[in-house]
Structure formats: structure tokens, C-alpha cells
């Protein structure tokens, strides 16, 4: 181990003290506490979501039931979905990632602790906000996917769709912030020796997962923004004679599908930690497991329309998505085989964690099988939106994600709290949940003609028996979770003291006390393999011999011929630069959603008449010029010529302001000719107003934000020098993005009509 202390490596961090007391949890930036906050808040939402499910099951237990009205039921089923997805499973996985990624990579915290704190409170707030409508009878009741135009004004009586859309935007912002934080943490702060090939699989899967979040969330943000604009400003994105409801579905499922992989990938990572530890063997086929995770990440972006096979897209698009969906089943299935092979030949310790992990395998395979069945399009045409689908996704979400979460909870609880969860209560809890889960959801496979989201059904349908069995199962599930809650409570008070490594596990988090101190590691660790603690305990057979293909001469102790610690970094981009660059990639996707809408709707209007391409072109040149002047300013700063830096920064700001002024002039011009967000002489003009003002308006907003940032830089110009130019470079990235995305938007809105003729 190295001899540098954390304090010496990071001297600017100041004295380290751990605060105590309840209030300290409110302002903590410690990733471990924030992780626990995520778990506690998710537990609260899980209770609410679970109660919603129980009431739904009671209502559906018998035909023609009147326990709740249709409108209450619609709210329950909407909130159950939203809560479980966005306020339980996602935050729990983020909570685990928050807690354990820095520990597993040997770092002291996340890259941006304050951003981390903001994310957790944004998550809590967005959840409470989503539920706020309960006070005025407008809990979201549009289904968690909120298909347009059901969310539009003619079809709703309450503000429920507003809470739905705004809540999703807020929660998406928190998710993206955390995702950026995790990406930069993993890329920039791995300890010496931990190259990508040596990272724990949990870190790998979390890394892939965060890219899914930053690139998929903006689709939903875009769609929700469009719905809000329709509701508040009368735009015509999804309402009106030219509106395309299918476009909403495309946007939604572009998030919706990666979302389900977002909900499972970190769980796969936990599986890859837990199974090796309790089988006492390394993960079988680490490279394939890592690569299959990356493959799932990429492919998940091209399967989305398998949720839309009944839309009537046509045989060719349907077949394309059927193919991609079948393809994504391959890396997913391969992982299962890798885990089975990890257990093979091992000495499996059946702790509660391992039971959940093992039970996950058949349950997830059942869910995967029914999922693959839907990829066979005609089968989807005969089972879409029925309880067969409900069975499928509960098998993958609950039998999959939730079982993995429970496995992870039992595995990591000792590290987080210093106490072991009781194994006997754990066993009881496991069997109740396993049996209850299957009794609840397996019967749903036998209801392939019962529609989803119906609050009741008739005796003549014959669906009563399966529904009753399912409700009974849900009660058993409830009992199981009560036992879990009891276990947590009892173990927190009287559980067996855990010690640093109760499972004899392999990764770096187990090299700290339980729970770890605020600074995590007294000295930055150095690793040579994927299982550093195994190497320590087994110096005669360390992992790096196999991982790096090292030949040990006979009779020689491996430690004497250990290869040098592989270097991680130096990284071309500093953490804050990485943060901005990845943020820009996420914003780029958001602009793409607006540009796609513009492109599709452009067939309904002419814009060559009302748009002044020449004038806007001049203002655009100012904007693009400001990008160049910004580069000049930075060059001067690099030479410590502060005066010229300030001069060129001012020119940049002025050019940006001219652009904004020009845009304002253009807007005024259009408004005076009758064009607006919801106004216009004809339907075509209204559609033009909808897409034009929203697309260019959001861009203008980004420019305005950029100008504010540049002005702040200007006011703080005394602080910058060649050695201290990081904030300048970071903000300049944002400014360049804002400038050059305009090239795409300008081409689309102003130049393309010249080619298409209208």
C-alpha cells in the first residue's frame, strides 16, 4: 500500500471531521450519508407504492368490485408505476452506487459532493411534488407513460398531467446530475492500478448505466416539456388536426426502453459482486460480462419501438425492432450463463443475499422469456396491453431488479451500518417474498385477454380466479416485506457486530471499517487485480497471475515478481471539464428531440415567407464569431495576458448579446405578423409557431444562460491566470456548444426550407 495519506494527496480539502446529529444529515455532502438518504427516502416511497399496489389488488380480487372508483384506481395505477420506477428502484440503485462506487474505486468521495447533495434532495422533492396533487384531487391518473393526447387539456379535468410532467422533469434533472457525477468519479478518480480491466463489475455496470441516463432522460424531458407547453401555452405538439400522437410515443419510449435497462444494470453489477463472493470463486468470464453490459447499453437505444408494435408502423419498422430486440436478448442471456458458471464448482454459502441472487436467475429468465415472446411481433399483437405484459415486467422488475436490490441490501447492510441483518429473519423474509411474488404474478400469465389498467372486470370474463390468487399472493408479499422491515429495525438495534469483512469478500469497500470513516481510506489503495482483498489473503495465488497472464517461475513467491502498479491517467480533461462535456452531450440529445419534432412537423407549414434568413444569418455569424473570439480570449489567458483576455471576453459577450437581441427582434417581427406559440392565421402557422418558438426559444435560453456565465467570468476576471483557468475552460465548452448547436438549428429551420421549397 502507498505511504501517502489522503490529506497529503488532497491538501486543499481542509480538516476532516464527521458531524453528528440529525441536522447534519440535512446538509451532508458525504457520499455514504447521501447513499443512505437515497435508501431511506426510497423506502418511504416503496411503502406508498406498495400500499397503492395492495389497494389495486384488493379492488381486482373479485369481479364487479367497488372498493375504489375508476378515477381513484387510475390514480393508483399511475402512481404505483411512477413511484416504483422513478422513486424506488432508480434511487435505490443510485443510493447503492453513491455509497459503494467511491469505496470500490478507492477514492474518498464522489467527484462533486455538493452536486451529489443537490441530487438527493431534488429526488425527494420531485417525488413529493409528484404526490402534491393529492391535496387537490389531481394525482396523476394518465398512466405512468402519459400517452398524448390523453394528457392534453380537452381530455383532463384536473391538473394531474401537469404534476406528472413537471415531476418527471424535476426527477430527471436529479438523475442526470447524479449520473454525471458518477461518470466523472469513475473516469477520473480510480485508484492506482485500477484500469478499466480491473474495475469491479458493479462499477462497470454503474458506469454504463449512467451513460444510459444522460442520453435517454432528455427524450422524456423533451416530451414532458412539449406536453407542458401544450397545456400552458396552447401549442400544438400533440393536440390538433396535424398533431402526431405517435411521435410522443417515439419520444417517450426512447427514454422508456433504456429506462428499464437503467433499472436492471446496476443490479447485474451487484449480482456480479455477490455470486463470486458467496461461491468463493472469481466472476466467470469477466471480459464477456463487462462487454455484454456495454453491448446492452448501446443496443438499448435501438429497440424502443418494440413497445409500439400495435401502433401500425408497418412491417419493415416492426421487423427492424423485432430484430434489435432479439439481439439484445443475447448479451442479457449470456450474463445469466456466466453467473451460473461462477457458481459451478464453487462452495456456495447460502446466506440470504445469495438466496435472493440465486432466485433472481429463474425469475429473470421467466421475465426474459416473456419479453422475447413480445419481440415476436404477431405474439405482441395478441398480448399487448394485457396482463401477460404485466406479468412480464413484474418478473423482470420485481423478480429481477427488486430481488437484486434485496440481495444487495443483505450483502451491504453490514458495511453501511456495522451490523449484520439477522439470517433467520432473512430466510423467512426470502421465502415469503419468493412465494408471494410467484403467487401474485405467475397467474397473470394466464390472463392474456384481460386489459391492463382496468379498474374492474365482469364475472362472465372468467378472470376472477386468477385475480383472486394474485391478490392472495400480494398479501403474502406484504407479510414478507413486513418481516424485512422488522429485520432491519431489529438488526440496527441488536444485530451482530459486522467487522470490516464479514463475508470474506474481495473488493475494496471491505478493506474499511464498518461503517467506513468519513474519509473512507486512511491511505489511497493500490490494486493489481479485480479482487484486491483476495490477492492480500492469497499471496501464493493472486488473481493478477491469470488476469495479466504472468508466468511465475517455479519455486518463486508471486509477490516478488509482482508487476508494477498500472497507471490510471493522467486524464486529458480535468473532472470539472469532463462534467461539462458529458452534460453537453446530454443537452445535445434534448435539442435533438426538439429538432426531430421540427423536422416532422415542417411538412405542415411554410416558413420561407416569414423568416428573414439573411438577417438571422448575420446574427448567427455574430454568434459563431463569438465562439472564435472566446478561443482567442482563452489563448491570451494561457499566455497570462489578462488584459487581452478580458478584451476578447467582452467582445464575446457583446457578440452573444447581439445574437440575442437579433433573436428578440425576429420574435417581435413574427409576433407582429400574427405568429405565436398558439396563434397563427392557419393551422400550418400554428404548427410553425409551436415548433419554431420552442426550438429557437430553448436555444435562446441556453445562450442567455451562457451570457450570464460569461459575465460572471468577467466580473471574476482577476482570479484567472494561465495556471488557474479551469472555470474559464469549462464555461467556454458550454459556450462553444451553444454556438455550434445553433449551426444545426439554423440549417434545419432556415436553410432546409430553401431546399425543400417551403
Amino acid at each position, binding site marked *: 500500500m502507498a505511504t501517502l495519506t489522503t490529506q497529503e494527496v488532497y491538501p486543499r480539502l481542509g480538516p476532516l471531521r464527521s458531524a453528528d446529529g440529525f441536522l447534519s444529515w440535512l446538509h451532508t455532502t458525504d457520499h455514504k450519508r447521501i447513499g443512505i438518504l437515497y435508501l431511506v427516502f426510497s423506502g418511504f416511497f416503496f411503502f406508498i407504492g406498495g400500499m397503492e399496489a395492495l389497494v389495486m389488488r*384488493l379492488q381486482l380480487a373479485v369481479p364487479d368490485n367497488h372498493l375504489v372508483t375508476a378515477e381513484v384506481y387510475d390514480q393508483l395505477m399511475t402512481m404505483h408505476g411512477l413511484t416504483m420506477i422513478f422513486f424506488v428502484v432508480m434511487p435505490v440503485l443510485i443510493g447503492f452506487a453513491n455509497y459503494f462506487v467511491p469505496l470500490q474505486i478507492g477514492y474518498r468521495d464522489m467527484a462533486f459532493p455538493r452536486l451529489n447533495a443537490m441530487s438527493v434532495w431534488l429526488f425527494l422533492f420531485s417525488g413529493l411534488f409528484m404526490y402534491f396533487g393529492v391535496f387537490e384531487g389531481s394525482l396523476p391518473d394518465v398512466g405512468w407513460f402519459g400517452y398524448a393526447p390523453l394528457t392534453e387539456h380537452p381530455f383532463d379535468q384536473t391538473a394531474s398531467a401537469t404534476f406528472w410532467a413537471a415531476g418527471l422533469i424535476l426527477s430527471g434533472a436529479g438523475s442526470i446530475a447524479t449520473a454525471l457525477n458518477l461518470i466523472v468519479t469513475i473516469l477520473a478518480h480510480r485508484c492506482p492500478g485500477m484500469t478499466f480491466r480491473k474495475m469491479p463489475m458493479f462499477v462497470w455496470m454503474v458506469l454504463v448505466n449512467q451513460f444510459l441516463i444522460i442520453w435517454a432522460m432528455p427524450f422524456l424531458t423533451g416530451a414532458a416539456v412539449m406536453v407542458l407547453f401544450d397545456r400552458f401555452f396552447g401549442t400544438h405538439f400533440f393536440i390538433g388536426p396535424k*398533431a402526431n400522437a405517435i411521435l410522443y410515443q417515439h419520444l417517450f419510449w426512447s427514454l422508456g426502453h433504456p429506462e428499464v435497462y437503467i433499472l436492471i444494470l446496476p443490479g447485474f453489477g451487484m449480482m456480479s459482486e455477490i455470486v463470486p463472493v458467496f461461491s468463493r470463486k472469481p466472476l466467470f468470464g469477466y471480459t464477456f460480462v463487462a462487454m455484454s453490459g456495454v453491448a446492452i447499453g448501446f443496443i438499448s437505444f435501438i429497440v424502443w419501438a418494440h413497445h409500439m408494435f400495435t401502433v401500425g408502423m408497418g412491417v419493415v419498422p416492426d421487423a427492424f425492432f423485432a430484430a434489435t430486440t432479439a439481439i439484445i436478448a443475447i448479451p442479457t442471456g449470456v450474463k445469466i450463463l456466466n453467473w451460473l458458471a461462477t457458481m459451478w*464448482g464453487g462452495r456456495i454459502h447460502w446466506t440470504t443475499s445469495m438466496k435472493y441472487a440465486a432466485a433472481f436467475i429463474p425469475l429473470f429468465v421467466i421475465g426474459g422469456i416473456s419479453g422475447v415472446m413480445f419481440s*415476436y411481433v404477431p405474439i405482441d*399483437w395478441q398480448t399487448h396491453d394485457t396482463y401477460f405484459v404485466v406479468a412480464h415486467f413484474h418478473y423482470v422488475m420485481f423478480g429481477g431488479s427488486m430481488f437484486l436490490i434485496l440481495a444487495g441490501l443483505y450483502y451491504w447492510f453490514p458495511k453501511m451500518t456495522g451490523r449484520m441483518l439477522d439470517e433467520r429473519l432473512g430466510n423467512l423474509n426470502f421465502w415469503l417474498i419468493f412465494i408471494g411474488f410467484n403467487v401474485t404474478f405467475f397467474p397473470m400469465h394466464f390472463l392474456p385477454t384481460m386489459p391492463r389498467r382496468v379498474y374492474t372486470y365482469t364475472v362472465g370474463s372468467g378472470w376472477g380466479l386468477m385475480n383472486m390468487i394474485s391478490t392472495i399472493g400480494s398479501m403474502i408479499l406484504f407479510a414478507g416485506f413486513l418481516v424485512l422491515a422488522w429485520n432491519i429495525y431489529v438488526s440496527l438495534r441488536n444485530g451482530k457486530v459486522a467487522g470490516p469483512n464479514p463475508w470474506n469478500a474481495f473488493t475494496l469497500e471491505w478493506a474499511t471499517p464498518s461503517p467506513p470513516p468519513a474519509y473512507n481510506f486512511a491511505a489511497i489503495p493500490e490494486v493489481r487485480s479485480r479482487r484486491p482483498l483476495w490477492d492480500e489473503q492469497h499471496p501464493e495465488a493472486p488473481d493478477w497471475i491469470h488476469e495479466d497472464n504472468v508466468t511465475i517461475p517455479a519455486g518463486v513467491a508471486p509477490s516478488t515478481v509482482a508487476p508494477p502498479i498500472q497507471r490510471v491517467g493522467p486524464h486529458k480533461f480535468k473532472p470539472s471539464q469532463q462534467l461539462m462535456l458529458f452534460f453537453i452531450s446530454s443537452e445535445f440529445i434534448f435539442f435533438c428531440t426538439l429538432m426531430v419534432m421540427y423536422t416532422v412537423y415542417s411538412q405542415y407549414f411554410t416558413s420561407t415567407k416569414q423568416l428573414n434568413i439573411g438577417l438571422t444569418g448575420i446574427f448567427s455569424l455574430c454568434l459563431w464569431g463569438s465562439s472564435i473570439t472566446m478561443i482567442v480570449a482563452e489563448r491570451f489567458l494561457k499566455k497570462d495576458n489578462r488584459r487581452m483576455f478580458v478584451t476578447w471576453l467582452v467582445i464575446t459577450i457583446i457578440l452573444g448579446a447581439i445574437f440575442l437581441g437579433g433573436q428578440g427582434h425576429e420574435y417581435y417581427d413574427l409576433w407582429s405578423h400574427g405568429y405565436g406559440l398558439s396563434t397563427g392565421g392557419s393551422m400550418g402557422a400554428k404548427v410553425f409557431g409551436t415548433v419554431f418558438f420552442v426550438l429557437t426559444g430553448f436555444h435562446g435560453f441556453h445562450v442567455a444562460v451562457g451570457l450570464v456565465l460569461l459575465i460572471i467570468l468577467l466580473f471574476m476576471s482577476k482570479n484567472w491566470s494561465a495556471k488557474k483557468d479551469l472555470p474559464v475552460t469549462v464555461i467556454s465548452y458550454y459556450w462553444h456548444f451553444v454556438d455550434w448547436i445553433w449551426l444545426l438549428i439554423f440549417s434545419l429551420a432556415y436553410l432546409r426550407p430553401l431546399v425543400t421549397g417551403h
Partner: protein
Amino acid sequence: MPSREPLPVRRLRSVQSPGHRVLVALAVAAGMVALAIISAHVAHAAGSGSTSTTPIGSDPSAPPWSVLDPKSDETRPVLTLFIIVGVESLIVFLLVCAALFINITRFSHKPGQDAEPKQLYGNRRLEILWTIIPAVILLIGFIATVVVMVEIAEPADAASALTIDVTGHQWWWEFHIPSAHVTTANALQIPDNRLVRFDITSADVVHDFWSPELFVQVNATPNITTTLYTDHPSLGIYPGGCYQFCGPGHAWMQFRIEVDTPSQFAAWVKHEAKPIEDTHLSNLALEGEGVFLDHSCGACHTINGLPSAHGTFAPNLTHVGSRWGIAGGVLAMSIPNLERWVTNPDQWKEGAKMPAFGFLTPSQLHDLATFLYEAK
């Protein structure tokens, strides 16, 4: 977690032994099950009232909904595909379970076995093999998929089909046969001797049109028309419904399609196209017709034969009395039920857009219901 000295371990007296704990847990679970059943039945009994007002599907003679009993050329191939895929899947599942079972039985840690087992890191060849084999299995399924898709999406003699326009509304289905000038709602008859083509759209939000045994599903989307076919259906009555959440009335957008012989179908079409004639109505019904006209029901509902009943916002009520049920299945077709519906639609079908007519006198309601019932 603030660190604290662990408290002395205290076992909870009441649940000491494992067996005891299992018993307690089972008792709790059983109690909850009982609670569930009792509360469901209480709620059901409290709400449903007399049997004649329970929804039409509660009649045990109502036609079944089965996706495993296809009755047309469009649905039979899907069952074949499902069986192929089902068998493939079962084999995969059993293999996975077998592997897991062996792992559990052969490779569990036994007391005393504390040495670490042989550390296996991977086997490239095996992994490549078990990537290729699933790919092949999936490819077989994919090819079968495309074959069936093409087969049922666009039948060979599409040009000669009988076209029926279907429009989804919140919360009813409008059927219009252009070639026969027939418009009806929630009830349809089709012949079994020719290809039938459905052109489907929506007047408001996204719905989904499906009768499991006759044809596959397709969404009903506003501003867009989608197409379904059914060919060589077997004779019988088939239920269907809406399969895309569309608001509070989603559960009650049921419809029925009756597959007839060509002569039965021709007779039905001829009858449906005829307007209601006063000469065929009883006196009470004529009074009811007056109530209908006096209260501007025709502003929303069309009844062919009535001078001012041309509304298209609500279901076409010509021949409504011959339909299988009221309002998409909430009530069976009868005079008392018609009265109940008209008095307060929202009570039976939450969110229904029809206003309540409870202010009518009982005799007016009875006359109106008689009129509608006799409009067969």
C-alpha cells in the same frame, strides 16, 4: 450511522425458535389473505345492488375471451408461432433451472469445507459457444416472426374486402359500413364469406381495437388511420374491448362482433340501414320519442328516421334496442336498465360525458326507455 456500543443481545421472547417464527409468519399471512377476501366481498356486495344491474359480462352465458382459441386466418398463425416460441422457451428455462439445481445440490458449502475451491476465471471457447447458440435460437424465432407478420398484415385479395370504418371515442366504438350506409355503435355483424377490412382511427385519444379470436390488435390513433383484416372467421359471437388506457371509461369500451352467414349478414345490413318508423312503435314508445325530441337528445345522438336527431358526438342509437348491452357493457339491454342509465350515466360509467337526466319524471323515463328498447 453514529457509532454506538452494541446493546446486549436480547432475543425477542415470543419468536425464539425457527419453527415458532414460521408459524407466526404463516398466521399473519393467512390473516391478511382472509382480510383480503372478506374486504373484497364486502366491497363487492356493498356496491353492486340487485343482480339485474350488474354489468352484462356478469351473465355466465357471455362469450369468452380467449387468445388461445383463434377463429380466423389472422389469428391462427399467431397461435402456431406462440407454440413454437413457447416450446423453445420452455427448453431454455428448464436448462437454466437444471443448471441452477445442480449448482445448489452439488456445489453448496458443507460444514468443514473451508478451503477455497479451484478458481476458474473463464473459458473463451465456451463463452463464444453459448453466445452463438442463443443467437441461432433467436434467429429461428425471428424468421418465423417475419413470415407470420407478412402473412397476416396484408392478405392477398385485399382489394375485394368489405371495408368497415372503426372510430374509437371516449368511451365507445363507432362502426360505419360505407358500402351499406350503416352506422352503429359497440355492436357489429360481419359475414364469414369474404375478407373484412377495418380502417381504424380515433376521435379523441389513443385507443386500441381488439377482439382476440378474430383479429390482432391495432391502436386507434387520432389523425391517423390504421388497418386490420379478418378472413374466414368461424360463426359465432365474439367480445372485444379497448386495450390502450384512455381514461376512466377504459374498462367499459366493450363491443361484440357477430359473424354471420352471408344471408344473415345481408338481412342485418338491410335492417340497420332502415330508419325508425313510427308505425312500428307502441304508444308508450311514441311518447318516449317525444321525450327524446323534447330534450334535444338528438343533438348528440343520431336516430335515422327522427327529424332532428343528427348528432355525431355520441353513439348512433338507431336500432339500439337490438344491441347486446348498454354503454359498452355496463348494463344489459332492458327497459329498467335503460331508465337507470339515462337517469345518471356517471353512476354506471364513471366519467361518461352524457349528462344526467334524472330530472325527468318516472313516466317520462319509462316512456323514453320503452322507445329506445323498441327501436330494434
